[in-house]
C-alpha cells in the first residue's frame, strides 16, 4: 500500500497543480491552474499543427512523385534514416543558435523533424499499391498524373496517414523544448522548475502525454475513415499478402 501512496505523492501534487493555482516557488506570482495550462496547451497545439501541416505540404507531393516514378528509393530511405537519428534537441538548439529565437524559427526546426516520416510512409504507401491495379488504370488510358492522383494516392492514403500520425506525435513531443526559443508551450514548467516546482514539471508532462494520446487517437480515427472498405477487409490479420490491392478489379478504376 505504502509504495503505491508514495508513488502517488508527486503525481497527486501534479494533478493538483493542473486544477488549482498556487504561488510560485520563488516569487509572489501565481502559477498553475486550468487557465495557464490551457494557454500553454494552446500554444503547443498551434506550434505542432502548424509544423505538421507545413511538413505535409512539402513531404507529401515529394513522396508521391518519388513513389510514382519508383526511382531514387535511396533518397527516401536515407532521408528517413538520417531524420530519425538527428537529435531533436540538437536540431532545435542548432536553429536557435543560428537563426535566433521565436515561433517561426522553432516551427522551421519542427518541420524538418516532421518531414522524414511523412516522406517515407508516402513513398512506401505508393510503392505498395498493387502493380496490376496501376497497369489496369494505365490500360484504361489514364495519364501518369491521373494515376498518381486518382489511383495511387487514395489507395496509399492509410499508410500516408500513418506517417502523418507519427510526424504529429514526434512534433508534439519535441515542441516540449520550445521554451528554450522563447515560445511558451507546455514545456515551460518542465524547463523552469524553479518557478513551477517539481509538481508543475510533472503536471506538464502528464498534460503533454494526454495531448499526444488525443492527437494520435484523432488521427487514427481519420486514418480508419480514409481506408476504403475493400482494403480494411484485406488488411486484417490472416494469410494475406499484405499488399494494398482491392478485392475486385472493377473498383480500381472507378474514379469519383
Amino acid at each position: 500500500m505504502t509504495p503505491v501512496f508514495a508513488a502517488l505523492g508527486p503525481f497527486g501534487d501534479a494533478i493538483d497543480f493542473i486544477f488549482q493555482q498556487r504561488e510560485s516557488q520563488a516569487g509572489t506570482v501565481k502559477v498553475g491552474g486550468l487557465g495557464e495550462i490551457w494557454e500553454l496547451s494552446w500554444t503547443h497545439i498551434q506550434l505542432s499543427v502548424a509544423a505538421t501541416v507545413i511538413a505535409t505540404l512539402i513531404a507529401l507531393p515529394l513522396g508521391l512523385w518519388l513513389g510514382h516514378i519508383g526511382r531514387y528509393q535511396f533518397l527516401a530511405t536515407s532521408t528517413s534514416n538520417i531524420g530519425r537519428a538527428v537529435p531533436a534537441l540538437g536540431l532545435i538548439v542548432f536553429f536557435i543558435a543560428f537563426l535566433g529565437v521565436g515561433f517561426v524559427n522553432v516551427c522551421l526546426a519542427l518541420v524538418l523533424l516532421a518531414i522524414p516520416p511523412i516522406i517515407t510512409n508516402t513513398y512506401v504507401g505508393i510503392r505498395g499499391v498493387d502493380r496490376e491495379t496501376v497497369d489496369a488504370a494505365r490500360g484504361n488510358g489514364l495519364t501518369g498524373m491521373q494515376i498518381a492522383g486518382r489511383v495511387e494516392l487514395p489507395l496509399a492514403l492509410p499508410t500516408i496517414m500513418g506517417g502523418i500520425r507519427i510526424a504529429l506525435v514526434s512534433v508534439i513531443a519535441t515542441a516540449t523544448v520550445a521554451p528554450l526559443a522563447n515560445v511558451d508551450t507546455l514545456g515551460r514548467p518542465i524547463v523552469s522548475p524553479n518557478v513551477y516546482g517539481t509538481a508543475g514539471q510533472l503536471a506538464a508532462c502528464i498534460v503533454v502525454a494526454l495531448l499526444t494520446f488525443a492527437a494520435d487517437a484523432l488521427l487514427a480515427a481519420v486514418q480508419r475513415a480514409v481506408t476504403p472498405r475493400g482494403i480494411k477487409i484485406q488488411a486484417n490479420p490472416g494469410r494475406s499478402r499484405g499488399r494494398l490491392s482491392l478485392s475486385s478489379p472493377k473498383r480500381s478504376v472507378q474514379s469519383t
Partner: protein
Amino acid sequence: MLGLSYVPVLAQLGEDFFQNREGAAEKCPGNNGLCLGWIADNFGDYVDPLWEHVLLSIVPLAIGFLIATGLALFAHRYRILAPFFLFFVGTLFTIPSIAFYLILLNITGRGFTTAVVVLTAYTQVLIYRNVMTGLQEVPREAVDVAEGMGLTRRQILWRVEFPLALPAIFAGLRIAASSTVGIAGFAFFAGAGGLGGEIFADPAFKGNVVTASVLMILLAAVLELIVLTIQRVCTPWERAVAS
C-alpha cells in the same frame, strides 16, 4: 566591510592571473562559433558521453528485440491477442520521451535503468509490428510444403517462417536502432547522461552542439550498418534490399 579584511591575501594572485580578454568575444571559442580547432583539441571530452550513448542505444535495442519478438511470436500463435498487443505497444510509443523520462523518474529513480526502461518501451512498436508483418507475409506455399513434409508446428515456425521473415525483422531492427539513438538524446532528463546532456550543457556553443549531434548521427549510421551486415550474413539467400 567584507572586502577589507581580505586585502593582504589578494597580493598572492598576481596581475598576470587575469587574462586580457579584449576581443575574446570575437574569436573562437569565445564567439561560440563552430571552432573546429577547439573541437579537435577537446574531442576527448566527448568520449565518455559517447560511450554512455552507445550503451543507452545498444542495451535497449537488445532487450527490446527479445521482448518484442517474444510478444510477436506469441501473438502469431494466438491471433486473438494481436490487436491488444499492437494497441499496447503503440500506446507506449505515443508517450512523449521527455514526459516519459520525468514521470518514470518519480517511480524508478534517476539513472541508467530508468532511461533503459523508457528506451526499451519505444523500440517495442517498431520491432513488434515488423516481426508480425514478416511472419504474416511468409508465402502460404512454403508453409504447405513444410506441412506436407511432416514438420511439426514448432519446426515450421523456426525453420521456415522465422527465416523467411528475417528481412522484415531486420528492417524493423534498423529503424529501431536509429530511433533509439535519437530518443537517447533526451536521456539526460532521467539523469543518464549521453550526448544529449552535452548539447544541453552548452547549447549556445555551436561547436559543441554540432560535435555532439554529428557523433549521434554517426553512431546511428554505424549501428545501422552493423545490423545490415548481420542481416546479410544471416540471410544469404536474399539480396537484402535497403527497405
